[in-house]
């Protein structure tokens, strides 16, 4: 079984300060983990992915995430927030090497707000 928990439903930071969006997962299998971003009134876009290679993965727009197996976490970070980062972020877990989309589990989302 798999599950994913996004620990904060809403995060607000000032422009130029670091961003931390927290995600914990549970998986009976070897997990693959992803972050998707959804800007207002838009579809989701893949931000970055971990698929059992390097534990620190870099994505688009300066975001990165670190897979920590001992903590079952995959937190998303960015050193300096930009106004354009305001969006909803989804942490996603799936089973590595498994082809069924039914094994893709989306978190409940974290809304990131940026203060000027």
């Amino acid at each position, binding site marked *: 079984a798999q599950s994913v928990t996004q620990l904060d439903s809403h995060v607000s930071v000032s422009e130029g300060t670091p961003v931390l969006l927290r995600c914990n997962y549970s998986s009976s299998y070897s997990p*693959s983990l992803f972050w998707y971003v*959804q800007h207002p009134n*838009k*579809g*989701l876009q893949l931000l970055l992915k971990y698929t059992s290679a390097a534990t620190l993965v870099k994505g688009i727009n300066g975001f990165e995430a670190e897979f920590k197996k001992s903590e079952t976490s995959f937190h998303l970070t960015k050193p300096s927030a930009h106004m354009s980062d305001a969006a909803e972020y989804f942490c996603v877990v*799936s089973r590595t090497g498994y*082809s069924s*989309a*039914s094994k893709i589990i989306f978190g409940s*989302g974290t809304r990131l707000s940026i203060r000027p």
Partner: protein
Amino acid sequence: DTAVSQTPKYLVTQMGNDKSIKCEQNLGHDTMYWYKQDSKKFLKIMFSYNNKELIINETVPNRFSPKSPDKAHLNLHINSLELGDSAVYFCASSPPGRIYEQYFGPGTRLTVT
């Protein structure tokens, strides 16, 4: 050069009506999906199609029926619409062997009155 497109963007209709949402992708992907996103932003997969074959069907009422005329299209038909069907519906596609790398359409906001 839109990758995944959906029509219409907004759909307002009355209970009991039948409606369809169209989806097209020009990425050459072989798997397409329909998702439902509720008012709390919770995203749930409804269907996926691979090479014109339905491969998963989550616990979705049979009022919902996906139809794929070809690999580039996956339409969603909904019969006897109910208030609870109000949501944003997203179409997505993924390349062979990479189901996690999904490309989403802009969504269709369905409001049932």
